[in-house]
Every structure is written in C-alpha cells, then in structure tokens.
C-alpha cells in the first residue's frame, strides 16, 4: 500500500487546469446568431457578463462580429476585445433564414471541429435574419438561456423538434432521412420557438406549423408528451399526451413503394367544450376524434413533404435502408423522386386513460 500512495499522489497532478486563465480574459458566449451575406459572416454574440448583474443572475452584453469565416469572425472579436471567445457554454445558435437556404454544412463542420463546442448545442432557424431574434431580447440579460430553455420545452411538448447538434448531424449524414431544426420567430410580445424547419441535405426548403410538427415528431417517435388539441372554437377539445409510439413498415417494389405507420397515442382529457363528463360513449367519441384528427394531419403532412417540399423528413428511406438494404440499393440513388411517389398510410389508435385528476 505504501508503494501505491506516491502513485496516487502523482495522479493528482494530472488533474486541474493546466491552461488556467482568468475569467475576465475570456468571453463566455451564451448565444450566437449567424447570418451570411456577400461579405462573409455576421455574428451577434451574447456574452455572459459576470461582472454585471448578481451572482445568481449575471448580466449580458452583445458583441457584433464580421469575418470571411466563422473562425475569422470570432478571432476578429478576440482582436477587438482582447478576450478569447469560449463556446463551451453556448446554449443556442440561431441561423438566419437566408443563411439556412444557402446551406449550413460550413456551420456544422465548424461546430463539430471546435473542441470547445458541446455536441448537445441547440440550433434553430429564424424567420428573417438571425440577429433580429437576439436584438429583440437585448434587454433580457439571459436571452440565450431563456431561448434554449424555451426550445427544450417546445421539444418536449412537440411544438418544435428538440434537435441537439449531434442528432442533426447524425440525420444529415445518414441515408434516407433529412434533418429538421426548430423555428424561432419574433412577434410583438416576444420570441417564440414553434414549428420545424425542413432541410434537404444542408439547405432549408420549407417549414411546418406547430400541428404538423407535432405530427411529424409523433411519426418519427420523437414525441413523448404534449398537448393535442382537436376541433376549434367552442368545440375544441384538448388532451394531454401521456405516451406516443410509432411503428413503421416500409417496403414494396422499386416502382411501387409503400410505407405504413401505426401510431398509438395514450391521452388524458384536459379540456372539453362540453360539460366535462367522460362516460364510455363520450370517451369512445373522443378517441375516434383524436385518432381521426391525427390521421388527417398526418395525411396533410405527407402531402407537404411529398408534393410541396419533396423532402423525406419522416425517414421512410432510412427504414427501407435499415430493414431492406437490397431494395434501398435500387431506390436510394433517386430517393427524392422515389419518396414523392411512395404510398404512405397511417393507422392511428388513440386511447383515453381518463380525465386527469377527475374521475370522469
């Protein structure tokens, strides 16, 4: 044991901060907005300012940067402030709409290669310029943190996809599936995370609203909770989604592809326009209503994906690739057009557990 003690003591030397730097020699980037123009990249960074605000609630300042590449823009910032940008605590990167339409492989490459950046970094696509989103919240000292929290919450409830960097990269590189990112938009009362941005390869090709995003997440098995509202006006009925599972069977012949989705929902009645009773008859009626609504939304989603955007965000191709690689070898090279001709159907089953806290 005596011989082990010096060894253990030596191991202690391996710990600690060999590159110790004072906090005030670094700019801790909480959030980043990226827009690309003809003259390069325009970045707006939200820097956590520990010298302002309180211990629990540090302040923030904003730093606008420009450069021919992301790395150059960030270096330019260091040259101006004398502090090195640290991206290890970056919560969210917002990409401008036009930038996303032009392709974001360059951004993905940079964030993947930069050792500071955590692979769980959240990315989102803005409506219009990305900088406008953060400028909207300039008065908020934790705009990036609040936005990241909003994105997580939206992801959990199905308002927008929860898509950390590593998962988007996995979809981007995999065969037979296209990536999706959450949308961020601003309105009079603030900034909202809702809807999905659809990508073909690395380029933005379309958007989905909240309902279709929720349906897309159901079909991809990425939704576990949220609120499902069917009908409208006085007849609107809301359910809490307690569980959601999706099973996909895809196959067929190269000229006659078929995908069948079985979506099973477990719901609890949350709010009803009627008297609130939940007897057996009404339960069956609500179950049918919920299943029918989801099915209709799914059909609408398929039309948007197959006919309008022509992008396989559902991952039908991935299912074929995984389960039937021989078929994929034939249809994979021209999957974009093959996907548009694929017959996609859904069977939706909804089961209502009860009325939450109420017995009825």
């Amino acid at each position, binding site marked *: 044991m005596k011989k*082990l003690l*010096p060894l253990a003591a*030596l191991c202690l030397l391996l710990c600690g901060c*060999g590159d110790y730097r004072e906090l005030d020699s670094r700019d801790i980037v909480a959030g980043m907005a990226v827009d690309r123009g003809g003259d390069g990249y325009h970045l707006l960074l939200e820097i956590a300012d520990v010298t302002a605000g309180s211990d629990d609630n540090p302040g923030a300042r904003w730093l606008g940067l420009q450069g021919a590449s992301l790395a150059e823009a960030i270096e330019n910032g260091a040259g101006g402030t004398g502090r090195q940008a640290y991206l290890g605590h970056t919560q969210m990167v917002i990409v401008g709409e036009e930038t996303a339409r032009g392709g974001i492989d360059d951004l993905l490459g940079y964030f993947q290669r930069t050792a500071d950046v955590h692979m769980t970094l959240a990315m989102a696509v803005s409506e219009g310029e990305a900088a406008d989103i953060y400028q909207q919240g300039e008065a908020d000292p934790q705009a990036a943190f609040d936005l990241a929290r909003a994105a997580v919450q939206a992801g959990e409830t199905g308002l927008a996809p929860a898509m950390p960097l*590593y998962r988007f990269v996995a*979809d981007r590189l*995999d065969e037979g599936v296209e990536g999706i990112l959450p949308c961020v938009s601003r309105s009079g009362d603030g900034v909202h995370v809702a809807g999905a941005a659809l990508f073909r390869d690395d380029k933005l090709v379309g958007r989905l609203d909240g309902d279709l995003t929720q349906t897309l997440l159901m079909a991809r098995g990425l939704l576990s909770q949220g609120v499902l509202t069917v009908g409208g006006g006085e007849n609107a009925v809301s359910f809490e989604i307690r569980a959601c599972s999706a099973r996909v069977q895809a196959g067929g012949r190269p000229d006659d592809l078929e995908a069948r989705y079985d979506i099973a929902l477990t719901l609890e009645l949350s709010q009803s326009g009627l008297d609130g009773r939940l007897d057996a008859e009404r339960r069956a009626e609500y179950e049918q209503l919920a299943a029918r609504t989801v099915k209709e939304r799914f059909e609408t989603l398929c039309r948007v994906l197959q006919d309008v955007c022509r992008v396989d965000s559902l991952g039908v191709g991935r299912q074929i*690739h995984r389960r039937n*690689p021989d078929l994929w070898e034939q249809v994979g090279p021209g999957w974009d057009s093959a996907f548009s001709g694929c017959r996609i159907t859904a069977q939706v089953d909804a089961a209502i557990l009860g009325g939450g806290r109420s017995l009825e």
Partner: protein
Amino acid sequence: MKQTDVSCGDNGKLSGRQIFCLLVLFVSGSIGTVGGGGGGRDIWLLMLLSGAAAAPVYWLYLRLARARETPQDCFQAAFGRWAGGALRLLLGLAAVLTAAIDIRLFISFTTATALPYTPRILMAALIGGALYMLLRSGTEVLARVAAPAFVLVAGMLTLSFFASLPQLDWGAVLPVAERGAQPPLSVSFMRGTFVPFLESFFAVMVLVPLYNRPSGTVRPIFAAALFAGAFLALTLMKNTMLLGFPAVSQYFFPSYTAASVVTVGDFFERQELLAAAPFLLCELVKAGLCLTYAGQALRVRGRRGAAPALCIAASGLTLLGRGGMAESIEPLRLYGAWIALPLLGVPAITLLALRLRKKTR
C-alpha cells in the same frame, strides 16, 4: 501482515481473477479510439468477432509463454543466439512503441478534453512519472490494483450505457454487413478491433509466468478475451445507436463524444467522466504492462536505472512529430497494419520452430 500475504495468491504469484482483470483492462485501453476514423456500422460486430478470434491467438501466446523457463528464452531456443536475440529485441522495441502510442493517445485525449494548452512535454513527463512508479512497484502491485480498477471501469461503462438508454436509436446498427463481410474485415478488423487483442501478447507474456497454477489451464485468459470482446462490442454498439455510425466514424474519441451527449438530469451533467476515467485508467495499465514486457525482452529489468530509462524512452517517443490530434491518430492505422507481423507472425513461427527442433532431437 506481509505484503505477499495480502497480494496475489501464493508467493507473489497472480490469481486467475487478477490476470482476468488485468487483461480486460489492457484490451479496454483501446476503447477510446476504436470505432472512430471510418470504422463503419459493423464495428461492434467486428469487436465481438475479434474477442472470439482472439482465443486461438491467446492459445498461441500461452504455449509460447510456457515453452521455456522464461518466455524470453524461447526465441533463442528456436532461432539460435543471434537471430533469437534479434527477435527478442525487436519485440522489446515493439513493446516500447506500443507503450509510446498509448501514452500519446493519453496525452491527446487529455489535451482534447480537459487541458487544451498544457505543454505536451509536461503531460508526457507526468505520465512517464506515473508509469515509473508502476514499473518500480512491479506487476504484483499492478495486479493488486487490477480488481478494484476493473470494477470501476466495468461499473462506469455500464452506468454510461444505462444512462444513455432513453436516447438510443435502436435501429442505427442496421443493416448488418451492408456491403458484405470483405470491406469491414479487410480494413477495420486487422487495423482496428483485432489490434488490442494482438497487443495482448505483451500482457500474456508478462502475466502467464506469474500465474499461481503453473501447469493448469489459464482459463482467465480466454475468459478475458471473450468478455472484453463482448463488453467492448456493447460499448461500440451504444456509441453507434447514440451518435449514428457516420458521425461516430468522424470522431477521434467516439466513446467520449457519445458519453458527452447523454443527459441524465441537471444534477449530473458531466457524463464524459464515465468514459474518460475508464479510458485513462486502462491506458495506464496497458502502458505499464507493455513497458514491463519491454524490460524483460531488453533484459534490463531489475537493473538500476532501467525503469526510468524505459519510461523516458516511451514518453520521449510521444513527443516526436507535431501535437495535433490527426498526427496522433493517423499513425494508428499504419501501426495496426504492421503490428500483426511481429505479434502474430513471430510467435507462430517461433512455436513452429520450437516444435521442429524438438522433433529433430
């Protein structure tokens, strides 16, 4: 109580359990890097296959280790004084090189994950110092550490696996052998997953003579090959299901990246620890055993100044070349291709030569 009583079975010898633990830790020293750099979707299957394929190779090593009174004598007995001595030296130098690559990965990993600007020379000196302590203490002390270290490594990797369950995409390992068996076998098997089992030559040659049942079957060795193969296959499978195989193939340290994206809750955010600590622990054990073998092969073990000289040689080798990650990882592919010759070809030919000589007599 005397040290020998506490330690290893009988008279400073190693128990089967300790040999099992040390070998599993030795093979697991490669878990940080295997799977990256174009490993492919079937990397987990190859690891499983490597564990099974290691059994006959271990049998070969075992026969060689027991062919003479000390394992190092067999080369001279088979090929004569000069040729045998040259082979012994070659394998000794290969052990130093393996230890150097191991230390280089240790430094690169630590640099990439924790201490970005610490000079490499300082890191190499610290690790060389830790290895010196290991060498000076001897294999018995290393064996005594092996059982708790094994529990720690297995526990952390298992915990990491369970923590990542909710985020796994179970279908990501499909389709299996999409482009047939040939491409993964020709590249990833011989240059990747099978290499740690081949490197076990150094460990087997050091450990088997210390086994406390000199004539019994060394079951722990075969059990270690199968266990390590299955355990590492499970880890690689988890990495693929978490990150997707194209992404896994892009990263230098896929196990670390996979652990870093797991989110259990706000109370425990740094999941990377579950991958980093076992990796570093296994690397130390591996480098320690390699240098122990080198000391035996170069016949300097026990001599004054031998341990520091070996540590300085291995640590110094790590400082050659530039310090980038690619410079650390890229040579591994070349290394994986040629290391099969000394670690598979030489033992096989030596055993054959020994048999022929025995028949001739």
